[in-house]
């Protein structure tokens, strides 16, 4: 009953935290409810395409109210997994239950309780914002009266109520994504899948969207399953699974994941990286990795070591930087690759070109 009342309460802009500091606070304030049975449990989920094994038997559990991050480099198996979890793709093997429904045996029941916000826009641009929601409400079987009430509440929540009768093709990227979030929530899903929800949006719009997501989680106890390329966004997750080559290589809270890095991250620009690397190995017993025109290594108490590095490394040093590990570092450590944002940029541009060409 209380959940029902809470869900009926429309969100208003005044409730939304709007700076990133406030956001972080809001994220911390809403404690995940890890108690009780998991809402999503995955056991040995596997998917092959011909000879290629895209997902190699992964297992994990997601608890109600959690924001669960799913990270991995391109081609690691993220999309394949998400497609299986939202019943668009049949698993080759393994089992998954979502809100008690078996993914392979009761796909339509699963579809009733999940909401999706896709990486690529999936709105009908030739319909108005409200018509898109009406389509969704009808296809999810909401009675007309309920549909009307919820459409209004959701459009107000994402600040699109005054644009409800405008064609979606006139909307900006941020507005479209907000509309998609409103649509994904219209049928009150228990789990909301967000596949790269903020890709291609400007930083301010990203921040704004996140404030919706976090406020929603707090007010409606919706479980979120999220993939993202942005490591600062991954920080908002309660737990993160890192997937690489079709396997989960780590699963923990962001803070615990950072401990994996083992100390501070030192980045060094020198005139002779190879020689410097040898000397650092001799001095501290760690092997630096060759980054893009720099050496990178992790070591405890990094700041105190900077003078020693500068003194004892014989090649010319152009710059040294020391910082606390970020999720980016975790990611590099685990997968040996950076989540390449520039790569995403290219993909985005390609999609843009494709769309323009097709119009």
């Amino acid at each position, binding site marked *: 009953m209380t959940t029902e009342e809470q869900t009926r309460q429309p969100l208003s802009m005044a409730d939304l935290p709007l700076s990133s500091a406030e956001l972080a606070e809001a994220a911390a304030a809403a404690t995940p409810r890890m108690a009780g049975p998991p809402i999503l449990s995955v056991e040995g989920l596997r998917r092959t395409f011909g000879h290629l094994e895209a997902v190699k038997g992964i297992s994990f559990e997601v608890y109600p109210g959690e924001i669960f991050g799913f990270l991995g480099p391109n081609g690691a198996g993220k999309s394949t997994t998400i497609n299986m979890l*939202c*019943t*668009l*793709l*049949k698993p080759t093997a393994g089992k998954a239950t979502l809100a008690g429904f078996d993914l392979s045996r009761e*796909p*339509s*029941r699963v*579809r*009733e309780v*999940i909401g*999706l916000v*896709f990486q*690529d*826009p*999936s*709105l*009908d*641009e*030739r*319909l108005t914002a409200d*018509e898109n929601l*009406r*389509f*969704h409400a*009808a*296809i*999810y*079987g909401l009675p007309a009266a309920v549909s009307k009430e919820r459409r209004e509440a959701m459009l107000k929540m994402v600040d699109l109520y005054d644009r409800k009768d405008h064609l979606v093709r006139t909307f900006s990227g941020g507005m479209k994504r907000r509309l998609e979030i409103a649509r994904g929530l219209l049928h009150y899903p228990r789990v909301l899948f967000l596949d790269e929800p903020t890709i291609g949006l400007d930083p301010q719009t990203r921040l704004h969207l996140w404030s919706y997501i976090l406020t929603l989680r707090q007010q409606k106890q919706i479980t979120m399953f999220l993939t993202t390329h942005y490591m600062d966004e991954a920080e908002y997750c309660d737990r993160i699974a890192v997937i690489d080559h079709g396997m989960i290589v780590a699963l923990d809270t962001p803070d615990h994941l950072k401990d994996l890095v083992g100390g501070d991250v030192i980045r060094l620009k020198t005139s002779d990286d190879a020689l410097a690397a040898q000397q650092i190995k001799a001095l501290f017993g760690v092997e630096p990795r060759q980054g893009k025109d720099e050496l990178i290594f992790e070591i405890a108490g990094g700041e105190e070591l900077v003078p020693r590095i500068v003194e004892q490394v014989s090649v010319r040093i152009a710059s040294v930087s020391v910082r606390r590990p970020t999720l980016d570092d975790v990611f590099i450590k685990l997968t040996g690759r950076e989540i390449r944002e520039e790569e995403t940029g290219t993909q985005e541009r390609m999609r843009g070109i*494709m*769309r323009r060409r*097709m119009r």
Partner: protein
Amino acid sequence: MSTVVAETTSTNTHMSALWRNLMAIEIVWYRDILRYLRDWVRIITSLMQPLLFLFIFGSGLASSFSPAGARPGGVAGVSFQTFIFPGVVSMAVLFTAISSAISIVWDREFGFLREMLVAPVSRTSIVLGKALGGSTIAMFQGTLMLVFAPLIGVRLDVGLVIILMLEMLLLAFTMTSLGIVIASRMQSMESFSVVMQFVLMPMFFLSGALFPLTHVPGWLAFLNKLDPVTYGVDPLRQAVMSGMKLPPVVARQLGLGVQVFGTTLSVLAELLIVGALGVIFVSWAALSFGKQD
């Protein structure tokens, strides 16, 4: 107490499964209608091609269309334009039906198909909604062509218009369903012109929409019988000609009534063939969409 509650809930969900699928069919249909009505440019431009055939191709060929024993410009009072009019109407229906069906490929490229596929309704409902949407639009488009009937001396009354609309709807349903089968196998819009050139144009030309099949070579007559469109065009033509009280000789000269194994099929039989093919195509479409990867 709790058992009672559980029972009611389960009946409710059972009831709602059917209800929900009907709602889904309706909304998928409604979306197509909404998009069609909003796109005036498309409505006008889709009329262009049939009108070119009717007025330019029709007028141009009328002068040379004078089979033996007929007065110049027509067969016993039936002008060439009158003859091709039902064919040109069916052209509007055919092209609109196929391009509506192919819009599924657009939906796939723009992501909207995914929105439909993850909804908790059966794929069959989505296919049915799509097939009905495409057929309604194609029927509208064909009906718009009827406006030009008086210009070429074809007389229509309300009863005839209703018959024509129903026949167009049936043909449109079959062709939209075929289009959906094709669309479910198409990966991109680039193959659209291939479909047009290799499927639609041959079907249209072979159907006898533009010329009587009375004196054509055997191979052409054979292919004509295999073409589903043949059985959709002839009822339209017979309906248009019905007001003219043509003597049987002229009707034969015009190639009215499809002959299979030496017998002339009745209009009802032809419509049954179109309907049966429609059912086959729509089931095929539902099957190829129902397949989950």
